[in-house]
């Protein structure tokens, strides 16, 4: 298994993402993001656009053709950067066990 595994050393990238969720990002942060974004589609976060250019509902893909993404209750965003940071925190917690504030 040579896929990149997020470790304590990547903690230094968190602030970069928090301050600039939409990039561009440093190579170190990009490596962390690729590990997050390249995961299989089952359970992968995505956004459902509920009002064009204004509002997005966070959802998780099923990874099964024809089975629609499942909305994450209460996670509605009016700012794409805020959505990115929210998902980064969720993934960080899921992949490292650590909760980011």
């Amino acid at each position, binding site marked *: 298994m040579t896929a990149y595994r997020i470790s304590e050393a990547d903690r230094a990238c968190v602030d970069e993402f928090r301050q600039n969720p939409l*990039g561009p990002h440093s190579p170190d942060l990009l490596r962390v993001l690729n590990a997050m974004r390249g995961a299989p589609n089952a359970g992968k976060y995505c956004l459902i656009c509920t009002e*064009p250019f204004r509002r997005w509902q966070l959802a998780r893909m099923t990874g099964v053709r024809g089975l629609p993404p499942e909305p994450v209750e209460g996670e509605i965003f009016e700012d794409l950067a805020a959505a990115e940071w929210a998902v980064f925190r969720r993934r960080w917690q899921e992949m490292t066990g650590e909760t980011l504030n």
Partner: protein
Amino acid sequence: MLKLVGYSDVISVASGQTIAFKVSADGVPQYRASIVRLIHGDANPAGPGFKTAPVVSDIEGSYPGRFQPIRAGSYMVVDDHPVLSGWQDVTLGCLIWPTRLDAGRQTLVAARDPQTGVGVALEVDKEAGLVLVLGDGERVAEVAVRRRLETRYWTAVSVTIDRAAGRVRLSQRPVQGFPLVGQPAEVDVPLPLAPAIPGTGLMVAAAPAVDAPATRHFDGKIERPWIARHVLDPAAIDRLSQPGPLPADLAPQVVALWDFSRDIPGTRALDLGPHGLHGRLVNMPTRAMKGAAWTGEAQAWTDRPEHYGAIHFHSDDLYDAGWETDFSWTVPAGARSGIYCAHIRSEDGVYEDYIPFALRPPAGTATAPIAILLPTASYMAYANDHNSVDGQDAEMLMGRLVPLQAGDLFIDRHREYGLALYDSHADGSGVAISSRLRPILNMRPKYASWLGAMGSGLWQFNADTHLTDWLEARGFAYDVITDEDLEREGYGLLKPYQVVLTGTHPEYHSTRMWDAMRAYLERSGRLMYLGADGWYWRIAWHRDAPGVIEVRRAEDGIRTWEAHPGEYYHAFSGEYGGLWRRLGRPPNTLVGQGFTAQGFDRSGYYVRLPGSYDPRAGFIFDGIGPDERIGDFGLVGGGAAGLELDRAETLLGTPPHTLVLASSEGHTDLMLLVNEEFAVTTPNLGGSQHPKVHGDLVFFETASGGAVFGVGSIAWCGSLSHDGYANNVSRITENVLRRFLDLEPFVPPVD
């Protein structure tokens, strides 16, 4: 969720011609329809906003909604014939290469009345192997080989019903066997019931259904199905499975033998038997597929058609949705050319759809000196692309969360709406065929694509309305013509125009389309190539069936699936497929540049190069300062240089006198060199490091007094409207367009 969707029978229409619209309304009892001219389909509030112009038409009014289903899945059907019923003894067989046995029971051959269950159906089951289902109207019985079938290996299957002996025999014989798996197997058991043959015709790769044209679709390849009204011995069965003509001594016993290697470009399966029971292929399965006899000595089906006797059927193939027409519009004389839509909306305004089409001038005429060649073949290539939910890489490529629109969610749920040339079928094989005879929900105004970068997110069709909006804002009269018109009419379509403008992403071209553009440029034509990744893939249009294209993703190039070795030649045309670059016609030879990099996060800008100060380019940069960043703004990724970039390259045929006017910079490491640009992987393929990751603005004159201007970026047109259309991208585009409209011939430089 969408409740109102539609499509049209043609993609372009001229005065005096009629376009028919087909609508499905899911729980919408009544809807209103009107015709609009589409000016700007981008609803981004940061830009000029959504714009249409009303069109008075006789279709305007209220229509009753009705649900119209789509039945995907390809198969072969043979109409009933006296020799197809009243069988006593029968032997039938074929070669199969199953691809999706996990999906459950699938039908190979069926002669069965779905109402009564009378008849026989030969099916496959992953564990039970070959299964014969028999029905006499009262009872249904099954006989199974009970030997596991292997996926993606050839197996010869046959069944023999011997009424006199009261026996049924099933045989499942791998063409290539392996230890432990894939061993030959057969059963020979008493006939559980004497099936009647219903006289409902015959189906291959699906079974007739009560409430649909077909059901129990087979995924995989089938080769050479045949039927004999006799009990045949194993040696005769084996001989009928071999490629080539029908053996003369067996001919009297054979009812039909369908040789899929005959007339591969067509939609019929030719019967070599005495009754001419040719099959109709429904929903365009993939032909020119390697059969069991393929050895590798031939790579082209045209050289050894007998090696390509297989058809790959898919349960999610779709050619023509086949909906009934709800309303038609006969275009009145003198109608203005443009991009038009039939706008349908529910009475309460909650649901709507826009069905786009081109209103073109009558053939052989022009109503403006400028034509936009709408890249409708490329729209078809991306039609109903599912990569936002099916592809694992979408979020990495975009550098942000995948945003799903209502249309994306609809086609995810409704797989029967068909696939794009970027999708894979449910069995994992690549989609080589795409049609426009179905609602295409990503070819819509207001649609934003996952591929379209931050900002407006436009891609293909809707992105091209940035150009129509700019032409209207700047007061230029223009005609709209389409790829399909170019395929039909060739150079004659382009001939009347002083200037031809491309769309933002004219990626897919047939040989005839390519030749037509070459002819235009050789005869003083002026081309403004306002996009990138153009003239990239070769396609073929179908010989007989309208509105459908095929691609064979041979060799390399940016692609989401690969054609299998030995399957690089189009079934539709017999031509070798792949990148025009690999066919010896790089786009550089036509338009001075070619695809070099792609990235879907944000866009860069251009800086001027010495070429821009050459007196030959003086008209282009009139009013542009020497240190101006060009296009450091825009609705597509925030800059004019983005999504996909083209680069000038003399080694690939960029004419030596081409002026490279400016090059782009400011790209992130998500903007990556395309794979045909490197033979060895290196760690510097991203936009912050690799010198070839940039787009070029190019200009060159042709020997006939014409000229080409290319922008080298898909994002260019997204910057045209910035600051009330008063910006340097708009200025450069207008400078070029005005000079190209001037009849004064261009003169190439001399030593």
